[in-house]
């Protein structure tokens, strides 16, 4: 059993509680803007809900999962006492305080600016301060991950850092640096305006800062999922990691190339030069590399498990896999959704193709498939896998778990495939209602209705997940034993210093940020006449 159960459980429970609320809002949004809902007589309510849904799902929920999982990894992979527990609780407290601070103005309709902030739209200052507190809380976690690894290194000079911890710390560094973009936007630009110290804002510069955060944050969300692919799934299905070095290289590549590519979110923006857009677009293509490496390594690791179980033949081994094991199921679903989502991503990253789907429902369909689908289904898997070690009780209802995963998968496909489709037809995102009575879009009504039905399947699955975990707190006690991670076919005895430390890759990450963002930021920051009047939400 893990020593810091309370700390980790607090993170997970808060994560899943806010997830449940935001999920309900999401299902309501799906319903209300579909032909089965009626037009909202106050569309502002839609944007309130959308701001809460996006803020929770984008900032609070994944951050808490990464943190809770990170503490579990630090303790169990390093097999040492977690240092800084009091600080960890402080970080958690900041996230609680920040979330409450942000949610109150949203609920009052004073911060309906959406989670991307959308300047020159300006909401109540407490909304932004709340988001800042959440980020600061998570930075404490980053520092603790780094510190605990350092302590371990002192005690084990030259020894290979366990893969789970190596990846976990890489993810934390990625987050620390990528959050700087939004932090600069909030602290230098938005908060002074929201606090009334200024009343104009450089919206173009703000968008560049936000793009600094927006892409790599996606890989921060993805880190727990990839860590689970490499270090949980092979162990859970009785296999081995095909290659430890390949895994390290993937995480290193994420660190280096996830950062300097965020301007693929500003392809349609006039204030960025086309040359920089091209560089960002090309580096975006490179970020497919670690994902391809991962898919290859994990398929090979899974094949090892199948062959160990007696699987034969070119593809016959697939039948020998433990398909009734929830981990196996989650992995397979996750890969399918990653595949479809990745294919869509290729369209988004292409400068010209992006123009046809920019700001349409395609985008929301895309990130729900990848994030809500491929990533979040592995969060479920992580929780199921860790739960007995956190509660000292067994999750007995394996069938219910399998049903829950199936429903999430089916629901996500039913929701997102039509969502993509109406996007291609040109339906804009972030709209509270559509006039499906008009012949121009009447044919899209059916697709949107399917999406909404998918939304309710997802809601059902999400609530089942919470019920399963809650029931797990009262199940019969078991001794789950120590928490272990998968081992590699060739478990490394020594690892080259570059693959065992992060410094070189962090240096490259920062260098590429400077080359790819330096000029566009300075150009706008130093030119005059680039600011526009702020538009205050709910103010005359």
């Amino acid at each position: 059993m893990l020593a810091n159960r309370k700390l980790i459980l607090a993170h997970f429970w808060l994560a899943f509680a806010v997830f449940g609320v935001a999920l309900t809002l999401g299902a309501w949004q799906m319903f209300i803007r579909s032909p089965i809902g009626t037009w909202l007589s106050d569309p502002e309510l839609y944007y309130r809900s959308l701001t809460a849904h996006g803020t929770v799902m984008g900032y609070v929920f994944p951050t808490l999962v990464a943190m809770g999982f990170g503490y579990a990894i630090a303790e169990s992979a390093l097999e040492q006492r977690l240092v800084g527990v009091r600080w960890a609780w402080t970080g958690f407290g900041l996230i609680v305080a920040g979330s409450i601070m942000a949610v109150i103005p949203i609920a009052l309709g004073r911060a309906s600016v959406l989670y991307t902030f959308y300047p020159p739209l300006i909401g109540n200052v407490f909304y932004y301060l709340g988001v800042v507190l959440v980020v600061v809380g998570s930075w404490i976690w980053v520092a603790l991950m780094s510190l605990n690894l350092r302590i371990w290194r002192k005690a084990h000079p030259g020894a290979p850092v366990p893969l789970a911890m190596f990846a976990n710390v890489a993810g934390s560094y990625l987050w620390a640096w990528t959050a700087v973009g939004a932090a600069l936007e909030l602290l230098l630009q938005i908060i002074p305006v929201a606090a009334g110290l200024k009343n104009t804002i450089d919206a173009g510069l703000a968008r560049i800062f936000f793009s600094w955060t927006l892409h790599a944050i996606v890989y921060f969300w993805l880190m727990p999922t990839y860590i689970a692919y490499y270090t949980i799934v092979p162990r859970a299905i009785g296999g081995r990691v095909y290659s430890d070095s390949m895994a390290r290289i993937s995480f290193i590549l994420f660190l280096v190339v996830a950062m300097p590519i965020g301007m693929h979110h500003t392809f349609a923006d006039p204030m960025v030069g086309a040359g920089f857009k091209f560089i960002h677009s090309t580096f975006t293509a490179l970020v497919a590399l670690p994902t391809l490496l991962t898919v290859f390594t994990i398929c090979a690791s899974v094949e090892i498990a199948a062959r160990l179980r007696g699987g034969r033949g070119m593809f016959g081994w697939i039948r020998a896999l433990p398909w009734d094991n929830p981990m196996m199921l989650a992995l397979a679903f996750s890969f399918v959704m990653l595949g479809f989502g990745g294919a869509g991503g290729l369209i988004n990253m292409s400068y010209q193709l992006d123009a046809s789907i920019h700001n349409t429902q395609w985008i929301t369909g895309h990130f729900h498939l990848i994030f809500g689908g491929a990533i979040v289904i592995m969060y479920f898997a992580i929780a199921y896998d860790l739960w007995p070690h956190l509660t000292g009780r067994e999750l007995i209802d394996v069938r219910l778990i399998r049903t829950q995963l199936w429903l999430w998968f089916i629901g996500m496909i039913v929701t997102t495939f039509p969502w993509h489709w109406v996007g291609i037809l040109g339906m804009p995102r972030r709209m509270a209602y559509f006039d499906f009575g008009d012949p121009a879009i009447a044919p899209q009504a059916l697709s949107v209705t399917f999406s909404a039905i998918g939304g309710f399947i997802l809601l059902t699955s999400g609530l089942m997940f919470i019920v399963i975990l809650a029931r797990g707190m009262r199940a019969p006690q078991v001794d789950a034993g120590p928490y272990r991670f998968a081992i590699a076919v060739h478990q490394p005895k020594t690892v080259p210093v570059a693959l065992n430390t992060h410094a070189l890759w962090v240096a490259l990450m920062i260098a590429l940020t400077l080359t790819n963002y330096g000029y566009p930021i300075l150009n706008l920051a130093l030119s005059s006449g680039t600011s526009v009047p702020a538009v205050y939400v709910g103010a005359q």
Partner: protein
Amino acid sequence: MSTRDLFTLRNSHFRIGVGLTAAILIVTAIGGFIVLPFAQPWVQFANVWDAICSAAGVPQRVASVTAPEQSKRLSEVVLTSNTLARPSQEAIGRGATLAQRCAICHGPTGISRADSPNLAGQYAAVIYKQLHDFRSGARTNAVMSPFAVNLTDQEIADLSNYYAYLPRLPAYHPTPQLPKPNIVIYGAPLRGIAPCGACHGSLDNKTGSPWLEGQSEAYMKAQLQAFATGERRNDISQQMRNIARAMTPQEIEAAAAYYASQPPDVVKAVD
């Protein structure tokens, strides 16, 4: 295993990592800043540096092109939500004196007996912008323009503050309160019409947009028609023209009749 062994050319990971990254960066930079700009046959660059600057997004002033001559004046007013915030008592007092010459049309209490707009309790920024626009000629009206041409900036600010300060009284043309028509609460999404209420109250208020409750129906109808035909053009970025052009005559009637029938206390609930 110290950083000294890491950041050195003897370390092959360092050589490969840094070398590959730099190589990719250089190749993509050459592609993005030199090759692709010249690959566009419809753009002419004087030299390579010119192409690089263009691809980097360096702001450029194009000397040979002059802005097209505007045949009619447009509004030059810049509004923020802080425009004229927190006026002094003196400003309001000066405004009251100046407002005596407005009373003949806009009423001594700021409520018009004719079809001129009511000004009592209107947002200061709104009156401020319209007076500036009348003065500059961006908006014209045979009666109003002569009053505005001689106003100073200070007088415009004082008048705006005074009228904003006046209590919102019921209008002179009471009709039974009408229910909200669709155009006010929903707009018409497929024609790009946002709900009127999203800017003019009922749902939300945006800087520079007047509240309309109790205004004369004839006045509002005339303004919407003027926006639709382009006769009135002092709305910033054509915000109102774009909407009015897309409205049907029935929607114009419905919106004007609805707002005219509303008592002013509806406004208070919003701001």
